[in-house]
């Protein structure tokens, strides 16, 4: 497998998904082409099939609830289109190495201010998720159980405590960052190579072509 950088993989995935999202409803042929691209994408990334299927299955249930009231033809198109989008995104996600949120998020085309928040959130997220897990673990070890009222109180307290704790934590982490020379922007280097830019342009043009073609009257 060709080694593609994570931000680049993300950009490619996003381009295709946006192309699919904007297709004309009912353009089965073009959806089929996109479907083939999606399959190729997930095979190429070697997404783990089992997990992928489980995931898509879970999504299918939810989606069909939304789409089914609208008649078979329409519903199945909507469903298939959503599934193809999910297939692409999940292939990307499931092949993401651990702790690469940050790196992946750097690939998002966002304004600088927002990019910064997104990156920091990605960072704190991992810290906080670990913290939530540990809080719960500790609560369980001390026998968390009892009436609904007590549970509700305990969990509200835990969310509250989590907030204060994260705030305190954020202040310390922020201090630790300042001490190490942080001045309002994370050191990032996600400059894409010319080759990546070329491929991205090709993908964008292809997707644009397919999507516009789906509105044409070919029959």
């Amino acid at each position: 497998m060709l080694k593609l950088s994570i931000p680049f993989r993300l950009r490619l995935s996003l381009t295709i998904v946006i192309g699919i999202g904007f297709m004309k409803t009912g353009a089965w042929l073009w959806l089929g082409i996109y479907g083939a691209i999606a399959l190729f994408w997930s095979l190429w990334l070697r997404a783990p099939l089992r997990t992928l299927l489980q995931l898509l299955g879970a999504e299918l249930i939810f989606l069909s609830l939304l789409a089914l009231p609208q008649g078979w033809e329409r519903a199945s198109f909507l469903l298939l289109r959503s599934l193809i989008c999910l297939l692409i995104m999940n292939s990307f996600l499931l092949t993401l190495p651990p702790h690469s949120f940050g790196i992946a998020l750097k690939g998002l085309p966002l304004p600088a201010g927002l990019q910064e928040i997104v990156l920091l959130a990605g960072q704190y997220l991992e810290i906080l998720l670990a913290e939530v897990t540990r809080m719960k673990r500790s609560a369980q070890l001390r026998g968390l159980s009892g009436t609904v009222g007590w549970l509700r109180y305990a969990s509200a307290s835990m969310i509250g405590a989590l907030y204060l704790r994260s705030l305190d934590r954020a202040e310390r982490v922020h201090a630790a960052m300042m001490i190490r020379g942080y001045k309002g922007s994370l050191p990032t280097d996600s400059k894409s190579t010319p080759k990546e830019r070329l491929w991205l342009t090709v993908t964008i043009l292809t997707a644009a072509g397919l999507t516009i073609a789906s509105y044409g009257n070919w029959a």
Partner: protein
Amino acid sequence: MHIPDGFLSPPVAIATGIASAAVIAVALNRTRASLGLRQAPVMGLTTAFVFAAQMINFPVAGGTSGHLLGGALASVVLGSPWAATLAMSTVFIIQSVLFADGGITALGANIFNMGLVGIWVGWWLLQPLQRLLGGSRNRLPLAAGIAAALSVVAASICCAIELAISGTVPLNIALPAMVGIHILIGIGEGLITGGVLSYLVKVRPDLLPGEQPQLQKWLVPVVGVLLISGVLSLFASSWPDGLDSVAEKYGFKDKEAVAIQNPTPFADYGVKGLEEQPIGTSIAGVLGSAVCFGAAFGIAQLVKPKDA
């Protein structure tokens, strides 16, 4: 209520996308001025917090459990709806990109509904409500709880309208279904927001906004009646078909919970409810909590200081 890819027509997706982008741009400007260099870490943390807090499940009533969405809470603790808009937008961006929860093309709409309509409706309701309830800081949790509940419902109405304009789901199906389920989610949201804020009022009052002057006397019944009738009409429009059928079909297992328990790269966090309560629901419990909700509102009216 995260709209997946492919459910919005291009015009709707683009229009909401542009609207959201514009608001984010304004929000970035506003918060940079007010929070300075600290903005990014504080925002980043609040965002992550909303995310993490969504993983602590809560028994609500009658066997339902819910979790926080967090828009109203974020705007109260950050003290600014602009900052909250940024935080929530970030949550949706991360959810759609890293958790495949909510579509990429629907991102604009999702931000528009929950990060914009949801937050601003809550924010606009918050202060009048707090004043209506007597204005003291101790009333903040109740006011914020009610505002949070209503803001979730408002967001779901937008969502239904967008789906309808897109021609995906006709309005007469979408509206009752979305509103019905989101009244329930909203109740949970309100309880949690209120609960967390009452805790914060107790231990860190300095983090929260202070007293609000009380409303003009004659305004009290007017605002009260408007709010109550608003709530009642929502119930009316959704009962019986919407609420009933949606409740049955979904079992109130709301979408976000599903996505996070899915085997995404984060599956190893093993995020589950605090207690493994079955989420299937008795309609009676739901009704019960709806009544409690109304009652709490009424009682709050009665107990508020006679004059201030």
